[in-house]
């Protein structure tokens, strides 16, 4: 199995550490109800087909990556950096310089 790191390119799966479902990126807001936290921590789908999960490029560039793959064919369909996703979503972090930067630079600043 090979995973494409957005920074390093196609790499052997052994370079990566598996974390879990990409649901971990959708952290409930401060003060969210117990149900939201329960769902965030414990409730997961178990799809036959497309799924998204988090991998860490441990023996590589140290980036967290969201990988989209197919559980029935084992095909790795796409991958993207978690940092770029997060920084765009966090309040107060949309400095103009970041928007102007090329995608790769953007990651470098987060």
């Amino acid at each position, binding site marked *: 199995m090979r995973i494409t790191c957005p*920074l*390093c*390119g196609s*790499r*052997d799966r*052994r*370079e990566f550490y598996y974390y879990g479902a990409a649901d971990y990126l959708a952290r409930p807001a401060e003060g969210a109800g117990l149900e939201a936290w329960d769902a965030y921590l414990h409730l997961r789908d178990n799809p036959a087909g497309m799924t998204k999960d988090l991998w860490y*490029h*441990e*023996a*590589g*560039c*140290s*980036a967290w990556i969201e990988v989209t793959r197919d559980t029935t064919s084992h095909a790795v369909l796409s991958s993207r*950096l978690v*940092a770029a996703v997060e*920084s765009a979503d966090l309040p107060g*972090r949309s*400095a103009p*310089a*970041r928007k102007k*930067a090329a995608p*790769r*630079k953007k*990651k*470098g*600043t*987060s």
Partner: protein
Amino acid sequence: MVSLIATDVFHGLLPVLQGPLQLAAATPARITSVMPFRGRAGAVQTALGRMGLGLPEPGQSREGKAAAILWSGRGQAFLLDADPEPLAGIAALTDQSDAWAVMRLTGPGWDQVLSRLVALDLRPSGFPEGAVARSGLNHMNALFRRLADGVEIWVFRSMAATAVEELAGAMARVAARG
């Protein structure tokens, strides 16, 4: 300031010679990791530009007159043999001079040596001069930089002896094939 006597990171294990292959010590005198603060990549780029360098793109490096800079991971670069003072306040700077053991593997067949230890296509055709990659040297986290006549291999200082043993073994096996 107290001046301490530096110890050879390879403890006399290098150089290793095997037929036309050579493994030699090449740890830079000064290594500083540079991680631009959020939104300050442009300022870092400008400051490095004044030093005759720049922020390298992923998998790239830049060579100045006396200094050099290597991409070393997401949002990070290693500044070599230069005073990082101009970057103070705009990037997180960490002195890593004593943290790495750096070797240069040269001679015809160096790529065959690495292919026994690295799950990466580092042949000259796919890994041109100046290119950098983070990957594993067998089970060790490593950094590779392509040189004109070979490759530079970086491992954590604590892994120096293991790295030399692995590389020397692979060199012997490649050399034995003639």
